[in-house]
């Protein structure tokens, strides 16, 4: 290797690690400002280490702003939504990818429409619908829309994965006498595990931090989720950013944990998958 490409290599590696620091910085920024007060955050010391460690921000967030309740609500809504999303979209994508039926292509395209419909577009009609059906202000009011909106993305991912699995596997299983249900449950599902991990992470992301629907569809305090809970730190004019930061740190933890745990899953399963395919 000549000197130029060596230098290029070093430059590139430096870039990688600088970007690494840049990517991690917001987390530290968040941690810092959860320990500061308004003045420090905005004026005296926005980007640096906190001058005093104001743990009371955390205490205030939990005791005075119902953060524990919102956390629990977010957790319930997210977990249930994801379970349903996985179940429904796995079944749907398998049918779309493997079975033959009329309108297959059209239906698949129909579901994909959900990918680019911003939630604001259907907000008020949806709210009225939820009220008319009688599930307003309950967990279902959020779970059902979240499931529906995430179906598009999950189906897309699963569909792609299903299509890359060789047909022979199903064919030989069929010839061995398995029913379609067995094939689905015992063969196909295990094969798309990496996709399941990916979809879980992305779906969790979209549900956990979701804001517009949660704002409009849930009005009673007992069912509010974290993003709306965070709003309660904003007063008519000013905002208590320190405690809000504390709440945000608390709210980021599950996401980060999930990624750290599931991210490994993805890595492991993928290695197995590609070795076999050759």
């Amino acid at each position: 290797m000549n000197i130029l490409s060596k230098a290029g290599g070093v430059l590139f590696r430096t870039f990688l690690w600088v970007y690494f620091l840049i990517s991690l910085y917001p987390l530290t920024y968040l941690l810092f400002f959860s320990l500061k007060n308004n003045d420090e955050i905005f004026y005296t010391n926005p980007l640096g280490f906190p001058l005093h460690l104001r743990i009371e921000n955390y205490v205030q967030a939990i005791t005075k702003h119902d953060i524990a309740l919102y956390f629990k609500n977010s957790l319930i809504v997210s977990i249930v939504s994801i379970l349903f999303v996985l179940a429904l979209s796995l079944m749907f994508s398998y049918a779309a990818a493997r079975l033959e039926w009329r309108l297959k292509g059209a239906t698949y395209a129909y579901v994909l429409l959900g990918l680019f419909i911003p939630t604001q577009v259907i907000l008020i009609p949806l709210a009225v619908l939820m009220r008319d059906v009688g599930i307003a202000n309950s967990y279902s009011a959020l779970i059902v829309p979240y499931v529906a909106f995430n179906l598009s993305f999950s189906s897309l991912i699963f569909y792609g994965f299903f299509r890359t699995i060789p047909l022979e596997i199903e064919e030989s299983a069929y010839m061995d006498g398995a029913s379609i249900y067995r094939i689905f449950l015992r063969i196909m599902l295990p094969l798309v595990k990496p996709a399941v991990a990916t979809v879980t992470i992305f779906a969790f992301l979209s549900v956990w931090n979701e804001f517009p629907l949660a704002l409009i569809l849930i009005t009673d305090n007992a069912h509010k989720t974290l993003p709306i809970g965070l709003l309660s730190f904003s007063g008519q004019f000013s905002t208590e950013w320190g405690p809000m930061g504390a709440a945000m740190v608390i709210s980021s933890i599950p996401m980060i944990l999930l990624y750290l745990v599931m991210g490994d899953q993805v890595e492991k399963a993928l290695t197995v998958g590609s070795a076999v395919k050759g």
Partner: protein
Amino acid sequence: MRNFKHNPTATSLFVLPAILTFSAVVTYPLISTLLKSFYEWDGITEGTFIGFDNFTRLFRDDLFYTSLRNGIIFAVILTVFQLGLGTIMALTIINSKTFGRNALRRAYFIPVVLSVTVVCQLWLSMYNPGYGLFNKLFEFAGLSYRQDWLSSMGVTSIIAVTMVASWQSMGYQMALIYAGAKSIPEHFYEAAKIDGATTLQTHMKITIPLLAETYKICLIFCINAGLNAFAHMQIMTKGGPGTSTYSLTYMMTRSAFRLDEYGYGCAIAVTLVLQCLFVTLLINRFIARERLTY
């Protein structure tokens, strides 16, 4: 084989739950929105039917064209930044010779996981003309160039906002590309190595073309996210200064919630959906048309 693939019971069982949920939540309100776009409606009381008037008014509205322009800028920057950087990062991480790649992979994804509020707050601090990071860097380097990042009336503001979004979700695209690249079988790479190709050549000629399906998905995401952009401009600039960082979605919420012109807002929504639909169909048609099997 025919019996296996044609199984109406199984098909219904598998397909109906998803379709019913989806239709109830998405299609029904969407149709409601579509219908209301032909009305003059304040969102609460009965509206009056006015045919296509909302639409003709929309196409004459300067704000519509500003929003459209902003949406396109947003979409283009997102695509270029995220697909470009995403590919580079993903492929670097896949390379087992890269030092510390697990740490790198996890770190690059962290911004995606954070809430939009935090990221926007951070960037607001960095963009601050007085003590923000960027202008301080210029100061450090002895340059007298300063930029009022978020307060210019031209396209600088929207570009500044877009960079925040690009930076934040880059990890998302990177993960998708990584997953796609990981499922390319090893033997392709082995063959290339035997033929004496360098890493760069391998990637250019093999990996990237084989990622076409993944890129299609990523492209659809980036463009739709760009056209639909809302949260970042709402938090950082509230569409300002003036109206220079408006997006179509923001314009829609403004009509619906601030001006009580819900019918007009619905018309904007319909235009937005059609736009995204059109673009997605285009992408679908021209990229990765053959099914990839290996």
